[in-house]
């Protein structure tokens, strides 16, 4: 894999920094260009280094076994630590990735003096918790208080949902302004390099790191919110852990894995009395959007988030659930999309036992039914699943071409290369 030196195209609205990627192994879905689109207002902060392209491409190179050549400049610190990063991931995920050789043509530091402290923000439990923990009232060190939040289009929001992204952006921008935090937009196709061949839900760390690195002139410190606590991270393998994230730091930008010592349920409890979370918590992965019903309330993630809030008696304060639980028996919805492989249910039992014991029998029943459903689906033969694809079942929307990419930007980049 060759990662060419990044180039920048600028128009009246935005700047696009892009890099051509050449693969040794062919795959019809791999994008020819990786790009980040940044509003002109923030153009001054774009890092000209290849760091932002190397980090997300590395995982794909490790997955398909392509050695990497980086033509642009790479931070010496990143170049040193990336080998350890490769060893760490290949030890934890030997069936998914293996170390590859990386050849650098330029190893040098980006000569900038960034001052911003950022967090990659989605409006979910983890990112809200990170923001909460780094507000002035909870973080005594001014150097560690968050000044900016990065909201990425092309990470958990697909490219076609442009309107949804913009509405959410405006909503969060207003909400965070109250806390002197500036929300920064970013559009990118870097997830499209992973989505076709890898289960990128577990491998999102390099995507978030890449998005942060492209703003190398702005951020000196970046929090990557933990989605699993330390104990879960030891049992299951993920690309974003307290061990891995800091290894992607450069000479000018430190990555900090935030919240890794807290279970998801502890985070929920901590933000359960925060009005920003009441009005803006967004955890649902399903792309429906209405001004208040940010969360469908029926998917696995919604139910597992609602249950602890319901057990604490604060669910009615959270205004973003379309159909919040009102009775114990409604927790049976958990069975509908229950996924035991995510491991989150383990922390639910002691929590519910402590805060609302009357809910326990319903959760036990939901989990029993959920297990039956889960194993039934697991046992459906692959051929049958393929046949069911035509009716819209077992289809992974992320694997569709241009799910996380924009054809017009590819065209723009191609045109810019043809013009002298």
């Amino acid at each position, binding site marked *: 894999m060759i990662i060419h030196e990044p180039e920048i195209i600028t128009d009246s609205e935005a700047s696009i920094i892009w890099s051509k990627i050449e693969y040794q192994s062919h795959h019809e879905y791999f994008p020819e260009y990786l790009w980040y689109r940044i509003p002109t207002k923030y153009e001054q902060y774009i890092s000209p280094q290849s760091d932002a392209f190397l980090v997300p491409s590395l995982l794909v190179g490790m997955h398909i076994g392509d050695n990497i050549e980086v033509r642009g400049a790479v931070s*010496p*610190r990143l*170049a*040193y*630590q990336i*080998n*350890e990063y490769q*060893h*760490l991931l290949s*030890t*934890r995920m030997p069936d998914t990735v293996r170390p590859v050789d990386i050849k650098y043509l330029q*190893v040098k530091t980006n000569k900038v003096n960034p001052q911003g402290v950022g967090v990659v923000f989605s409006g979910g439990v983890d990112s809200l918790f990170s923001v909460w923990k780094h507000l002035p009232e909870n973080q*005594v*060190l*001014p*150097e*560690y208080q968050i000044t900016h939040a990065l909201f990425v289009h092309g990470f958990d929001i697909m490219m076609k949902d442009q309107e949804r992204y913009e509405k959410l952006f405006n909503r969060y921008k207003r909400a965070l302004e109250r806390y002197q935090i500036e929300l920064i937009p970013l559009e990118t196709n870097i997830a499209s390099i992973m989505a076709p061949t890898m289960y990128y839900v577990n491998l999102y760390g390099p995507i978030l790191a890449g998005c942060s690195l492209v703003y190398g002139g702005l951020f000196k410190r970046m929090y990557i919110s933990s989605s699993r606590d*330390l104990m879960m991270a*030891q049992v299951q393998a993920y690309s974003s852990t*307290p*061990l891995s994230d*800091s290894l992607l730091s450069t000479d000018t930008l430190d990555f900090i894995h935030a919240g890794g*010592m807290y279970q998801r349920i502890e985070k929920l409890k901590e933000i359960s009395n925060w009005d920003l979370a009441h009005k803006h918590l967004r955890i649902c992965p399903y792309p429906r959007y209405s001004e208040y019903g940010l969360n469908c309330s029926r998917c696995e993630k919604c139910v597992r988030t609602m249950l602890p809030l319901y057990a604490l008696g604060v669910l009615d304060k959270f205004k973003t659930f379309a159909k919040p639980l009102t009775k114990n028996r409604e927790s049976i919805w958990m069975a509908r999309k229950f996924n035991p492989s995510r491991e989150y249910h383990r922390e639910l039992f002691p929590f519910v036992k402590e805060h609302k014991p009357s809910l326990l029998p319903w959760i036990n029943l939901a989990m029993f039914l959920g297990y039956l459903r889960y194993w039934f689906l697991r046992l459906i033969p692959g051929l049958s699943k393929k046949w069911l694809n035509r009716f819209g079942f077992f289809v992974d929307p992320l694997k569709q071409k241009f799910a996380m990419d924009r054809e017009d930007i590819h065209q723009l980049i191609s045109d810019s290369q043809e013009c002298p």
Partner: protein
Amino acid sequence: MILHTPKVTHEGERICIAARFELRNKLAYLPDHLWYRVPEVYEKCISVRVDTFAPTALLMAMYSGEPLSIRGPISPKLAYGLLEYRNIFHSWSPKLFHMIDVNFDSFEPVASYDGQTAVATAFSGGVDSFYTLWSHLVQNQEIPDARVTHGLFIHGLDLRLNDEINYLKAAEIYTDLFQHLDLELIRMSTNAYHFSEFRIPWTLFDGPPLIGAALLLSPFLRRFYTPSGMPSYNDLIPQATSPLIDHLLSTENFDVIHHGASANRIQKIKVVSNWPMSHHRLRVCSDKLRMDGVKNCSACHKCYRTIAVLSLLKALPNHRNFNGDLRVSSYVRWGLFTLLDPDQVRHIRNEAWSSNQFGMVVLLQIAILLREVKRTTIHIIKSLMSRELVYRIKRKIYSPENTETEEMQ
């Protein structure tokens, strides 16, 4: 507990920098001060900030269950890292390390110094140290910024303060080795072990004083490698030097990097045994009474496991500082009378299996079984005693290095 600002005193050719640990409820035999001594030539390279002492003070405060107040300015980056450090130690061992509040007087980023160009590695002469040193030599490390320029050989950590003869003998040999490699070995000493002796397992305590020594020299060092003793990223056992926590003790202009967790011990010994500079200099022994400089006792668990691997690799003749191969009685002794680590021995057993050394496989398995019998017996006896009683019994059985007088409130 209050950590006071450090004070510097000149002691002939050495400089002593010490900070007072003031506990509300004093613990028996616990020293009042943590100190480091460095040769006078490094006088301009030392930091008089509280940063050096804060990580060790944190663990002692957590052990005693008292909130920690840190006097004097501390690096904001270190302060942030210390809070996460505290959370991790507490989650590892909540009974040993209590969750405490940490109060900071003030914050002051560490300034960048013109002479801050050195890159050091902790060096004890063991397999991990040699592997980290080898990995950062000019011929093996393509990134110039990452190459090692100095080693820190600290008296008072694995080589205890009351074992000066062995320290001096080893220091002489390793100083020559570093000179030969065009590098410099810095000799230091500390009384950090006295704080953990018989109280906190050394492997859960050694990181902060080790990194503290490097923090002391941080006006001169910009990077410090801690050689990894981790078996693998898949077995992140709680240890005070770990890839999970070491970097948390970095400051604004000083990076701590845990190195070598990607290679297991057998892989490291393979690399090190092929490097002539390590021949006859590998020092792995944990028996301070029987070792002699870099000559290993060949009868402790660390010696046994190294000899077993060197024997598998047919590299023992290159290491005359071990007393030859293991005998049947060595395996029995290994299981019953030493601190055999079953995971590491299983790794060696698997390696022996792939090398068709079936006799060794059987003997290693016997050693593991004997260790399980011993461990269960000791566990039952210890569960019947209080923590303080265990401490006092250990003082009676073993000769304590810490000879402070008992002061109880």
